[in-house]
């Protein structure tokens, strides 16, 4: 059984999408969207990160479920770190 080999076209396509995302995030930062500015910036960054993980890091094509589980676990615990920390800092009414 041989591994998946992506086409040059796909790699260049992903690269173009990442470049477009970079331009988009710079342009979006110049527009006043109020509290949505950081949301849009992080949404674009996450989209770019997902493209890199799935296609450049070949996670989309791996048959090994354990690898995918490890990645999802890492993201889950990272979000716990951020979530519970901010649950504390944003609810300190006495400061």
């Amino acid at each position: 059984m041989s591994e998946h080999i992506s086409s040059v076209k796909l790699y260049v396509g992903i690269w173009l999408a990442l470049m477009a995302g970079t331009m988009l995030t710079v342009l979006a930062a110049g527009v006043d969207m109020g509290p949505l500015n950081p949301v849009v910036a992080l949404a674009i960054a996450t989209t770019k990160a997902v493209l890199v993980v799935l296609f450049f890091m070949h996670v989309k094509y791996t048959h090994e479920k354990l690898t995918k589980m490890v990645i999802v676990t890492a993201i889950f615990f990272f979000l716990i770190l951020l979530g519970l920390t901010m649950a504390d800092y944003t609810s300190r009414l006495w400061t």
Partner: protein
Amino acid sequence: MHTSPPATVEAEAHENPALLHHFATEEQQRNAASLGMWVFLITEIMFFGGMFCAYLVYRYSYFGDFAAASSSLDLKWGTINTIVLIGSSLTVAMAVRCAQVGKLKAIVGFLIATIVLGVAFLGIKGIEYKQKFDENHVPGLAGFHLEGHVPRHADIPVNQQHAQIYFSLYFAMTGMHALHMIIGVGLFAYLTWKAYKGRYGPGYYTPLENGGLYWHFVDIVWIYLFPLLYLIDRHR
């Protein structure tokens, strides 16, 4: 996971000298190496994660000062560096692909291109650091001073201590990222040498694949650092 392969496949696979005897198939060996690399990368996620968390807490607490400090960074260089790093990720992906399809000479070319882009990134980072030293924006130095006021509050001057926290995080996060880039360039110099020697091809390219995973990970860290550090409240 794989069940035991047909005898013919196994016999064929064992012709590959890179296949270690405790793996049944090449795919199993590749998956094991890839899983190990990903486990290392999740420790890296938690390592950088701590700094991202500290950043989030202080940005939440001192938003105005962080916005003022963020806008003092040079957006032009930050954007160029993002483009440089994304380009290097493409060359890495292409180098791995060339190994898969057996274009051995092209592997070396793409790896050298990756190193050139990596060094360019570090050079631009150096220019930016130099600017920050020239502008007295380095936390802890006696002359630290960030001019100006909190965005949209012309009457509130920048709190110098809060601005120093921003720059502490800026130098810690981009500095750790740059250290990873330096290690990456060293790693890729080694991979280039081995590829030049003809070590990697369709039958064996695990170090190339795993080195690539490391490089892409460092790219992803920057993908988040760029908007978080450079693009806070740029619109005025």
